[in-house]
């Protein structure tokens, strides 16, 4: 565990394992902890760089405007600071939004790209969903049961939420405990706006790396197909040359929880090719 100064902000990072470099980009709520189950497996094959992006976890959380560009530029700065010229990139949920932004902005830095549950552009339904997140967070706080309940309805499938081991109040508690220490209200609100506003549809042709697009068949947040005004996983597949679309049958948005083993195996296979 260490920190390095990137664009004026102390960024927390950790490198595990050895091999070709892989950087993992956290989502809107849990920072690098979202990859806690994935990193040990990937580290058997790769040199895995986990970090908390600006505003999250153990990195600085300055009061400022946060955008996809902020986080994409910080990732380049982090790679520069660590002397990593080119790396595999794995981003899930908002980390996937940042990953696709990064890959369109700095394609020469990306070896192979894995996007897990994201969108190139949000449709109006997504906008409504993120407006609800903002409304609940503003009223109840990012460390509340109320926000954790709302996040669970978007993160998981019905069958996962009904499972005795992982579901019910266990899921809500797990979500709250992942969010509370890692997110701040002002950053979370900006993250929601960033996902509402992002639009990389016109830049997708700039992605030059082999790309794997992963999505759960039951994902209602970043579904296979957004509405006509959005650009979801299938749209990205159709607009990123040579990309592969991998659909996890029965899973919701949270592939790394619901289909952890299959997802990690697929990521390792793809990055090893």
């Amino acid at each position, binding site marked *: 565990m260490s920190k390095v100064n990137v664009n004026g902000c102390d960024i927390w990072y950790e490198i595990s394992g050895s091999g070709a470099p892989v950087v993992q980009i956290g989502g809107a709520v849990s920072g690098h902890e979202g990859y806690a189950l994935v990193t040990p497996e990937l580290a058997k094959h790769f040199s895995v760089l986990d970090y908390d992006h600006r505003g999250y976890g153990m990195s600085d959380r300055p009061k400022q405007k946060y955008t996809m560009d902020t986080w994409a530029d910080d990732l380049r700065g982090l790679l520069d600071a660590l002397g990593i010229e080119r790396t595999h990139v794995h981003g899930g949920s908002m980390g996937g939004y940042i990953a696709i932004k990064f890959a369109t902005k700095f394609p020469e830095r990306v070896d192979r790209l894995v996007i897990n549950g994201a969108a190139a552009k949000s*449709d*109006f*339904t997504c906008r*409504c*969903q993120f*407006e*609800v997140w903002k*409304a*609940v967070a503003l*009223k*109840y706080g990012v460390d509340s049961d*109320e926000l954790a*309940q*709302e996040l*669970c*309805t978007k993160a*998981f*499938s*019905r*069958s996962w*939420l*009904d499972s005795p081991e992982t*579901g*019910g109040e266990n*899921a*809500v508690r797990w979500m709250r405990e992942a969010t509370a220490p890692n997110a701040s209200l002002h950053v979370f609100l900006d993250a929601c706006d960033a996902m509402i506003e992002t639009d990389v549809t016109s830049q997708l042709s700039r992605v030059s790396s082999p790309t794997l697009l992963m999505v759960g068949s039951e994902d*209602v947040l970043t*579904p296979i*197909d*957004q*509405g*006509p*005004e*959005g650009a979801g996983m299938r749209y990205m597949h159709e607009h990123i040359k040579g990309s592969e679309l991998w659909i996890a049958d029965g899973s919701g948005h949270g592939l790394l929880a619901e289909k952890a083993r299959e997802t990690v195996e697929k990521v390792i296979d793809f990055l090893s090719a």
Partner: protein
Amino acid sequence: MAKVAVNGVQIFYQLTGEGDYLMHVPGAVVAHEGYAAVTPGMARHFKVLDFDPRGYGESDRPKQRYTFDVWADDMVGLLDALGIDRTHVHGGSMGSSLGAHFAAKYPSRIHGLVLSGCTAKSDFMSKLQFQIWKHLANSYGTGSLELAYALCSESFSRRFLDGPNGKMDAVRGLAAAAGRNVDADVLCDACDALIDIDVTAELAKITAPTLVVVGDGDILTPADQGPSGAGGRYIYEHLVNAEFKEFAVIENAGHANLMDNPDQSNRVVIDFLKRVSERSASAHARG
């Protein structure tokens, strides 16, 4: 437009068209306005009874505890007051859960039954969804954009919300309609009723011909709930004593299938209820 006293409260109702009676049972948010686009088409075939349940719209809204029993008893009281012995019943969203409850409690009053976007028992996902409605109604009010964002994203298909009747027009329209028709206290009771509902054991008491309808993209009341719930498919499979039963999936439609795909949605309902009417007419002629 008229009102009639039912169980001590004034209930707003409206009769439109001619034919066998068809009662529209409203959902949790916009009372009889939810059928505004449907009633004129239905009135060409049936005598349509629209009403606002106790606590909603233009009916009285006393401070009290609201449950499916309260509303089902009011429904039978309304039919009694209007001298209606038996009626087709079409319930959408909470109106379908209420319709199922009513049909199990008063089976002899039902002619043909349509349950659209129906839940017989909520799984944990549904319970959370209704909890969020309660949080938003309590914090921001029933007429707020905040609540309407949640209702819209869970009720309409992504295609509809991106389309000409979607976007902020849909959000603002739903916010205004919700604010007009229901207060937070009543909506919270309605959400609790939906969280706690379990009519799975009562489905066998439903004897009327029944049509179960669900949108193929419904994420609020999908055909299949999680293992702890019971959605439309479960209901269809467990209507063991219905005179006959049918299951219709509305294409390209979310929970609000009457708005998402009005053509198919109205067609299956009219077609089903007309067949029920014709069967009973010919049975009557034979008898």
